[in-house]
């Protein structure tokens, strides 16, 4: 089962002829992802690692019927790429791009939602269902199939946790990087709901960080709706307020978004929160019994 991506995934790569797009297309193909098409305006007729390139998403959809799109397009053009994918009817859009203006995302978020599509990201590593489909920029080999769903606002920190799980012999159903921006298309709650529904997911890892109140909202959701064991990790216990810690969304502002609050909320919802990434594996092992 898994969630969002799997063997049925037919992937479109927007920005496929760019440096990043081309490199990761190769990586995703190597992992076994079914990359069916790419789009770069003006590059129709070319091939990138054997994948046909189209001028427009509409053309790519007509010719290859993708059901997921991944976007490697620079920030100034990424919102347009999202609109193009959504307007072409692609139900799941993954935006890797970092640095999209926040007020642009206010519009994009509303638009995508109104069309009934799902956006993952932006500023995220993508998602992977180990052994089936890698739709992102994470290193594939650190993952292994298994019962743990991972959802995270971070990139390399997710790899760290996944790697700890894998090294402890614990595989993952799907690992979803939801992104580090203040406004992201898919929240913890959305993914928690999917993991709760997914019969192959037996436990869930939630990796949060300072900024915003999404972890608190997730804690509330877990208390009400999630019966599977959840283990948390929150980065940024030592982060000072008012300073952006790399991610546009990782900032304690207006007295909100501290790690302490988030940890307290999760623990109050019965979610053990690891102090170190490696401890996540220990807690998950305990949870899985």
């Amino acid at each position, binding site marked *: 089962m898994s969630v969002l991506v799997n063997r049925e995934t037919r992937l479109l790569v927007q920005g496929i002829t760019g440096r990043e797009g081309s*490199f990761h297309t190769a990586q995703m193909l190597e992992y076994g992802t079914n990359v069916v098409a790419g789009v770069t305006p003006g590059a129709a007729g070319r091939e990138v690692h054997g994948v046909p390139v189209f001028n427009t998403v509409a053309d790519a959809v007509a010719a290859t019927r993708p059901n997921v799109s991944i976007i490697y397009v620079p920030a*100034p053009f990424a919102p347009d790429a999202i609109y193009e994918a959504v307007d072409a009817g692609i139900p799941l859009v993954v935006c890797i791009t970092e640095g999209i203006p926040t007020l642009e995302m206010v519009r994009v*978020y509303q638009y995508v939602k109104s069309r009934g599509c799902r956006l993952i990201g932006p500023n995220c590593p993508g998602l992977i269902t180990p052994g089936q489909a890698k739709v992102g920029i994470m290193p594939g*080999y650190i993952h292994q199939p298994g019962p743990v769903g991972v959802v995270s606002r971070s990139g390399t920190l997710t790899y760290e946790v996944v790697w700890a799980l894998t090294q402890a012999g614990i595989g993952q159903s799907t690992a979803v990087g939801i992104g580090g921006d203040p406004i992201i298309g898919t929240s913890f709650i959305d993914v928690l709901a999917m993991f709760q529904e997914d019969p192959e997911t037996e436990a869930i890892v939630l990796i949060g960080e300072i900024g915003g109140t999404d972890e608190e909202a997730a804690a509330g959701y877990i208390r009400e709706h999630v019966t599977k064991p959840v283990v948390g990790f929150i980065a940024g216990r030592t*982060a000072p307020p008012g300073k952006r810690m790399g991610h546009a969304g990782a900032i304690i502002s207006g007295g909100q978004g501290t790690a302490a609050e988030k940890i307290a909320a999760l623990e109050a919802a019965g979610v053990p929160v690891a102090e*170190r*990434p*490696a401890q996540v594996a220990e807690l998950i092992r305990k949870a899985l019994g």
Partner: protein
Amino acid sequence: MNIHEYQAAEIFSRYGIPVNRGIVCASPEEARAAAQDFGSRVVIKAQVHVGGRGKAGGIRLAAGPDEAEVAARQILGMTIRGVPVHRVLVAPAIDIAREYYLGVVLDRASRRVVVMASAAGGIDIEEVARETPEKIVREYADPLLGLHDYQARRLGFALGLEQDLVRPFAKLARQLFTAYMAVDASLAEINPLALTTDRSWLALDSKIVLDDNALFRHPEHEALRDPQAEDPLEQEARAAGISFVRLDGTIGCVVNGAGLSMATMDAVKLYGGAPANFLDVGGGASSQQVATALRLVLSDPNVKAVLINIFGGITRGDVVAEGLLEALKTVDVRVPLVIRLVGTRQEEGRRMLAEAGLTVVDTMEEAAQRAVQAAEGRETRA
């Protein structure tokens, strides 16, 4: 990106908001002259990018030029929350009937821009939000259509304003919203917003924080940056495309990825140390970037040890090691260095580093522990 009060006031006034225009002064003499010009009581305000300047004594009233000069001299000699004051704003003192708060900010939870107002103006709005949240009224702007006129009016009615004040207030709220959207702000705030004794509205303090992600489409905002107000190391890091925040510990951190960087800092703390900085070298982690990062971290005299934590990810371990070795050639490392390297081809990478005589450890936890020990002098550079 933070900008100064006087810059924010200039932007607000461009969008029609009545602001209490002052004169920016860099010396007590200039402040005296400004007070002379206004020919009235003046207020003298420190121009710094930190909050709480009022409580810190950074805002003074002066009856005339003499007092203005004295007050300006005192304020210009101050350091507020570690930030030295280089400029003051001298503005006419206003006869205020009541003080309000008006602000526009992104509400992350609803994914919308929210306009907030309060009759409890002039004081710390975060405190109001915490202590008496019912004193703040809010309107959430439509993501695609913006703030409707009726919403702006509703704010005025909710504040309990007299009928004749509602429309002018609503106009102001719309103007502030328009300014916020137009400059791609993450915060735009008037606090206090004064209702003067002659029943007109006037922004007494103006604040704008700009969205860093949107700077690329506002090249004109680069000119608003105040190099004096920023940490020089943070400036250098930004120029190199590195996310860097200076902290006050002793263990320098060089990490790839923002979340991992924070987790690394947390691990340092967990094992009894204190991080000297947050640093994310970014995705590429080229040898040049690693070198710049190392140099940045080492230029902090407090740093007693450096912890390098790289999760190779797509980048191959041997490439990272090569970059590191390359970087070490150009940087003088005066403190112990602890390296943790994982990822594709980690074995090759580690071997290369070990051959160069560098300590390479397996896990982040071990690396943090070692770095803490090294900073305490319990272990030297391998």
